[in-house]
């Protein structure tokens, strides 16, 4: 039963399975086990990033395409919900309209970009997506009547999801249930469903063809698969999932601006996570996102301790300064690209293979 759910794509490593179960379990009980708005925010961000990075893994890990336009689709999803909710007022219908329109726009854009650019070499495609994403970010801040410009849009969500909604008078398990917690569980369910869906896709015949194309597109074409069609489809699917992640983001934050979803820093974060977590595994996105978001929020405190220890020394104190954690992440990223292309998940699985031999 579990196998069917995971589309027969098992973790294949006890350590990995344990880690995954741990992450899922913790995410499930965060509102009760770690009460407080910061921990809830971090957990929500983990959920959103899991979906976002997994959708990128579909593109990079399984199809072998590097695109820098992923944040654009993320932003489309977020803006879709934001604009619809701002204009139509808070409500489920606004959410529905926002999500559907965002998906439609993403579909069209990813189709156009895919068909136009996937006929060219990988390098060109990467450059073009970089340019397009950059243009889109500028567009979002320029069209201020529509998107709220630099300041972004603040809006309300359906009543059930808003913080002031408190269905129960009594505390349950020591926590007062409010709209935030309900939102959180909504995100949780959506994230689980989307990840399982992605697992289904990459383990289907379609997914196998994608991997064949990634390995040797020439041969795949020779066997008879129209690689352009498959690549475009992968592009579109990846974009759609990213859009949904954006919708999740907007529902949670009840705000969206150009920097919240469209910034290049987020694109870099996605790249870092997908490579370090493990390309072509989907599980890599889960582990990687959890580690990354946790580190982003809590590691800095840890590093601050370390920084205290080397306070006086000129360069070294700067190197371990918590603001420079990206440096070490970058180093880890480069090492992973060289030596561990399948990232953490790959390493964990390798151990199993080695032990079995």
């Amino acid at each position, binding site marked *: 039963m579990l196998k069917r759910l995971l589309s027969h794509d098992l973790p294949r490593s006890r350590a990995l399975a344990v880690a995954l179960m741990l992450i899922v379990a913790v995410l499930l009980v965060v509102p009760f086990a770690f009460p407080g708005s910061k921990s809830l925010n971090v957990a929500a961000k983990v959920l959103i990033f899991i979906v976002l990075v997994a959708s990128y893994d579909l593109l990079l890990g399984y199809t072998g395409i590097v695109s820098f336009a992923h944040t654009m689709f993320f932003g489309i999803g977020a803006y879709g919900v934001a604009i619809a909710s701002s204009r139509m007022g808070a409500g489920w219908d606004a959410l529905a309209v926002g999500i559907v329109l965002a998906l439609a726009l993403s579909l069209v854009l990813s189709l156009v970009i895919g068909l136009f650019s996937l006929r060219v070499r990988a390098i060109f495609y990467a450059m073009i997506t970089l340019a397009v994403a950059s243009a889109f970010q500028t567009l979002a801040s320029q069209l201020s009547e529509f998107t709220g410009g630099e300041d972004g849009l603040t809006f309300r969500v359906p009543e059930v999801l808003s913080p002031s909604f408190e269905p129960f008078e009594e505390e349950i398990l020591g926590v007062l249930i409010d709209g935030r917690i309900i939102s959180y569980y909504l995100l949780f369910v959506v994230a689980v469903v989307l990840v399982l869906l992605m697992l289904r896709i990459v383990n289907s015949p379609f997914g196998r063809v994608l991997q064949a194309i990634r390995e040797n597109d020439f041969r795949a074409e020779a066997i008879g698969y129209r690689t352009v069609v498959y690549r475009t489809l992968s592009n579109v699917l990846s974009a759609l999932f990213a859009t949904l992640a954006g919708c999740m983001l907007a529902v949670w934050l009840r705000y969206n601006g150009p920097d919240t979803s469209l910034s290049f820093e987020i694109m870099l974060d996605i790249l870092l996570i997908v490579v370090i977590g493990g390309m072509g595994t989907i599980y890599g996105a889960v582990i990687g996102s959890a580690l990354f978001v946790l580190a982003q929020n809590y590691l800095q405190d840890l590093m601050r301790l370390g920084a205290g220890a080397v306070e006086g020394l000129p360069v070294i104190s700067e190197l371990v300064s918590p603001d420079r954690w*990206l440096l070490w992440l970058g180093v880890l990223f*480069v090492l992973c690209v060289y030596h561990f292309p399948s990232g953490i998940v790959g390493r964990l699985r390798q151990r199993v293979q080695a032990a079995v031999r």
Partner: protein
Amino acid sequence: MTATAASTNPATPPTATPAQVPRARFDAIPLLLVLALAGLALPLVGSVPTWLTLTLAGLAMGMIVFIIASGLTLVFGLMDVLNFGHGVFIALGAFVATSVFGLMGDWTGSASVAHNLAAVFAAMLVAMAVAGAIGYAFERVVVRPVYGQHLKQILITMGGMIIGEEIIKVIWGPQQIPLPLPQALRGSFFIADAAIEKYRVFAVVIGLVVLVGMLWVLNRTKIGLLIRAGVQDREMVESLGYRIKRLFVGVFVVGSALAGLGGVLWGLYQQMVVPQMGAQINVLLFIVIIIGGLGSTLGCFVGALLVGLMANYTGFLAPKVALFSNIGLMVAILLWRPQGLYPVTSR
């Protein structure tokens, strides 16, 4: 790049008069495009003095972008390596310049033109040296292990950029640092009603020097010949007995040094430097080298001028459209010449 002028050759037999010997015709259309764009802008802008100021600004910006992008396009043409981390050398050059200016404060502050220029040239030289040295390390450590693997290249050079930016923040701090122009380069000349900024003229001059230098090396020296041949067919150049791999490093180092030089000029143009300044113009660089034709120096030059002019004209006429104008320019040119303005035939 097509061959330009002929050279005297004692081996050409006297029986063949120059008129009979077929030679390549120089394709000047892209250069004319630059003039056309400037000409088109004049009636749109309206006033000649404003047009002059904008055109000069565009040319200056174009020259700086050319200096930065010239290395990128050659490295790609010769080694098939697209360095997504090229921007880090820009920032490095600019930050080094701030340090040099800091050390030479009395010279930059003095009223003597000679002192000012000396300080600027010192900054340029030091920036180029540092950027070149880091470029060497970058090539050996980051790029060399992934020759031929495009996917990994893109990822790794991006990673290199992240690391580079962070290290810049470690050394110089994360905030922006002002880079004021020395006395002698501030202000403008006035020709009729038009304000001609002194620094912009300076940037154009430097750009032309770099262009002439590059074209001379590429067309008149054997190393340049090797580079142009290597861009077309690396394997054949090796079969002719040349260790082209050694050339790679050299070209990469020169490209990085030029990026450093561009960084100094760019920092002075904006009068301040930020660690992200490299990443900020990454997109612009790619647009320029695609327009120009990957591997073509002259194409890069024309592309940069077009982009610089376009950015300034649209910045004045329709600011909201500025970034799109460059993408629009790229699409228009690709529809006309899909391989860029001066395509390089490869293999």
